[in-house]
């Protein structure tokens, strides 16, 4: 506090700089350059944010004002479109949120429960068969999920899980496994083996050693994976659309938005409020957790 004040006041109390004819320091960044950079960045930021602005202001306007004045602020702000989108005839957005959240939680829990132990065994065992298992899982990171969806439909039909929540959650979980196993195994190798050995001496079994001793230390990677899985399940469109299908009556936020918006693409009093309600929670979540989300999603992007 006092230090802060000192440094802040120092220039004010210092005598005005005498214009000494000293040669300018070659290392100093010229101020105009910095201003140009800031102005340029501000213009780019505006371009990036305009769509968001359009989305927000038009969610509160009537169709005629959207058509004649798409960029202006709402003149007679009305909440009616928002309320209508929230209760939507096409799909119930609140229910869509609940369903999607349920999927996100299930996939995350299952993914950790399945990938954690495998990664532990792979990381701790020098055996060749577990190294082969690692490669087997790693190969899965290169398979695009669109390629999988057709044969997965076949498999799920054969075992009677097509069109069910269980089938969908299992498939989404499997999609998270390759990268989870890869990240977890990499992280576990940095956890000292001495911890495991101490636990084993105390009579702790392998499974318990993992969950009680190693897993609590894995918080950073698990957090990264949870962020990644949350966004990929939340934003997934193809898999819920095809595996759950319109027949099941179960809509996630994305398939619900598709059902509502694709039918009324020119009725902007449906389009804008629905889209706004679909993205608002994500944006708020992003603003508060941006550091973790950016690093998590960037790590995920590298999985291809």
């Amino acid at each position, binding site marked *: 506090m006092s230090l802060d004040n000192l440094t802040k006041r120092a220039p004010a109390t210092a005598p005005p700089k005498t214009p000494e004819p000293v040669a300018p320091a070659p290392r100093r960044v010229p101020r105009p350059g910095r201003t140009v950079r800031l102005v*340029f*960045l501000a213009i*780019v*930021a505006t371009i*990036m*944010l305009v769509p968001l602005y*359009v989305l927000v202001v038009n969610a509160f306007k009537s169709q005629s004002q*959207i058509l004649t004045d*798409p*960029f202006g602020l709402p003149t007679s702000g009305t909440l009616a479109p928002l309320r209508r989108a929230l209760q939507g005839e096409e799909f119930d957005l609140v229910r869509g949120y609940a369903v999607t959240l349920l999927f996100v939680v299930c996939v995350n829990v299952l993914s950790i429960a*399945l990938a954690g*132990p*495998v990664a*532990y*065994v792979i990381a701790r065992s020098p055996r060749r068969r577990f190294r082969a*298992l690692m490669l*087997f899982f790693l190969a*899965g990171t290169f398979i*695009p999920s669109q*390629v*999988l969806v*057709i*044969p997965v*439909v*076949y*498999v799920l*039909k054969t075992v009677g899980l097509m069109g069910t929540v269980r089938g969908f959650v*299992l498939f989404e*979980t*499997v999609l998270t*496994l*390759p990268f989870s*196993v890869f990240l977890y195994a990499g992280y576990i190798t940095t956890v000292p083996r001495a911890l495991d050995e101490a636990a084993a*001496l*105390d*009579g702790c*079994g392998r*499974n318990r050693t993992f969950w009680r001793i190693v897993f609590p230390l894995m918080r950073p990677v698990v957090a990264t994976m949870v962020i990644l899985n949350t*966004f990929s399940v939340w*934003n997934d*469109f*193809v898999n819920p659309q*095809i595996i759950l299908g319109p027949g099941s009556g179960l809509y996630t936020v994305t398939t619900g*938005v598709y059902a509502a*918006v*694709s039918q009324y693409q*020119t009725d*902007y009093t449906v389009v804008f409020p629905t*889209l706004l309600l679909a*993205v608002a929670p*994500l*944006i708020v979540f992003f*603003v508060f957790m*941006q*550091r973790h989300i*950016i690093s998590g999603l*960037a790590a995920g*992007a*590298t999985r*291809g």
Partner: protein
Amino acid sequence: MNRSAAPPRRPAARTHRGAAPTRRARDRRAGLATTVMVLPATVLYTALLAVPVALACYLSLTDWDGFSAAPSFVGGANYRALANDPSLGRSLVVTLLLAAFGTVGLNVLGLGFALLLNGRSRVNTFFRMVLFYPHVLSALVVGFLWSAILGTTGAVNGLITSHGGDVLPFLADPDWALGTLVGVVVWAAFGVNVVLYLAGLQAVPRSLTEAARIDGASRWQVLRHVTLPALGPSVTVNIVLSLVTLLKTYDLVVSLTGGGPAGQTQTIAYLILWNSFHDGRLGLGSAQSVVLMAVTAALAVAVAQLRRRGESAVYS
């Protein structure tokens, strides 16, 4: 020998004969624990990922319609149908153009803004966030939003017509629509490349750039001859990732152009899912996905090889 290796704390009474467990018994128990830990994930992964990949190859040789339990074998008929399908040619062109221009856009902007935003400051954090946020939204929402902005009655055309101008066919003309698609893809995704390039820049040793500055190199020379060569691996990763991601573009096409106008912006991924689930020709769709898988793998390997050769040329 064996008995002396028994764990010290285990009470002898816990085993059948009142003796300490043999090593074999303990090994068996440890083996069981390992199996319990490994098996569930491995079985599920095999059933829902490894088997389907093999199944895709098999189904591509059948006439499966999505319903019949026993599709009949048709040999290479699906692949022959692919070779003669005019819509496949167009979708290949669309996908490759999208991948090519998109990759250039993503990497030029990604690297450019990473260089501009390198360094820790609150301003940089803010701009990084602004550039990154579209990636958080689902591609489906991004597409619907931009089609509401650029459509014939959309926001931009509304502004133009209210000032007496002519409607611009952002999504109504095939060539314009492809350009719009590339633009929106780049808008939505280059923030990721910025972050990845920033991570790459962190790995460039400061001592290198400082040494070059002290030796009298200009900022541009440092960038050209020190920073960029050191970023080599980063560039490879970014290019391969952009290519692989763009080759499977689907959601955005559905919501932005709907594959139109007149099917002129259908990507391969769009065609696969359209043939499979709209027309009920899952055998044909499987053949297309096998082709997509092969093209993706080949391109990724080729780019990585080219880059590696380029890098060794730089350093030798």
